[in-house]
């Protein structure tokens, strides 16, 4: 059903917004000093980044958005006071085959376990399927990220690939799990 009245970037407690080059680098720099958070979100070796480095990253993100046209990037804000909560994106979109990867993170510890991740994922999926018209999305999750595993399972994602011992953290090996959700599965859920 066509439903253009629905506001794609508004949820109960949060909203999607663009990058704010003035205020966000300071906040996101703080997140990068939290190694535990960064290891949940990213597979690359983590390291703290200064606000200046974050600014450069934002410029690279906006360059990619403009030139490659396969990245859709949102900041997650609190509706109450507009403070930066996290980020959510559809990335590496393969337009020919209609698939993309989704990723999201809630930056500050005090903003976690409040349902913001669920609201953000709901908006991100609605956007990926309803606006970008993707056939399917993939979420890649380290086996040690239990919060993310629960979140994607709750949204009906199917575990499709388990790359054995693909990650080495603190001398321990972890599987890298790839979840998939099809547009049709999402539609069925929305109707149910």
């Amino acid at each position, binding site marked *: 059903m066509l439903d253009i009245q629905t506001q794609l970037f508004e949820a109960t407690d949060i909203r999607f917004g663009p990058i704010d080059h003035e205020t966000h680098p300071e906040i996101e720099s703080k997140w990068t000093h939290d190694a535990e958070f960064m290891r949940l979100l990213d597979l*690359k070796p983590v390291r703290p980044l200064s606000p200046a480095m974050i600014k450069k990253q934002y410029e690279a993100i906006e360059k990619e958005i403009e030139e490659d046209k396969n990245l859709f990037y949102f900041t997650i804000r609190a509706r109450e006071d507009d403070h930066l909560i996290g980020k959510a994106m559809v990335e590496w979109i393969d337009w020919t085959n209609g698939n993309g990867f989704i990723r999201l993170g809630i930056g500050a510890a005090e903003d976690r376990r409040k349902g913001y991740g669920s609201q953000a994922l709901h908006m991100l999926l609605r956007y990926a399927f309803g606006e970008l018209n993707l056939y399917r999305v993939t979420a890649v999750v380290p086996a040690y990220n239990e919060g993310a595993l629960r979140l994607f399972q709750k949204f009906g994602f199917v575990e499709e690939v388990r790359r054995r011992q693909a990650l*080495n953290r603190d001398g321990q090996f972890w599987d890298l799990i790839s979840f998939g959700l099809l547009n049709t599965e999402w539609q069925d859920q929305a109707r149910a």
Partner: protein
Amino acid sequence: MKDIYRGTLVRLCDESPEIMAKAFAKWDRDTEQHRLADSDPAMLLSEKKIKEIVEKRAENKQSAPFSIRTLAEDKLIGGVGLWVHSWSHSDAWLGISIGDREYWGKGYGTDAMRLMVQYGFIELNLRRISLGLHAYNERARKSYEKIGFKMEGRTRGDGLRDGVRFDSLWMGILREEWLAAQELA
């Protein structure tokens, strides 16, 4: 020490970018070949452009590309390469294409892949090697299983060709699995 570039049917080489560009330009005309090896849309590029791509890949510190030549006739028949997507987790993607279709299904690809897996484990000292393939590529799956790759999953309908949805398969081999198989051999 053994010659790690030499198999039973092929050897791994490096070519001048001009030679490789000329070969790829010829092989790219065979769209069945392209659609077996690649998920990007089939496309024809100039030799100049292909040469630039080959040169760029050669400079990339994460990638280890080789050409494949037959031992019998020293004929250039394809390319194979590892791309180390993470040095810290020590995992690499492995990809191959036998561009010359005369050499399909005769063990040349499997021989080249065996050499590349060995190179990954004993020269790059990787912990794991990963690969992906189209579910319709039966010949590739059998070849990879022979080498010791294990099936790790299937992404549903992530490919679309000729209006038909198809799956991708994902396989991996761990260093200790490969080492154990060498001792048996």
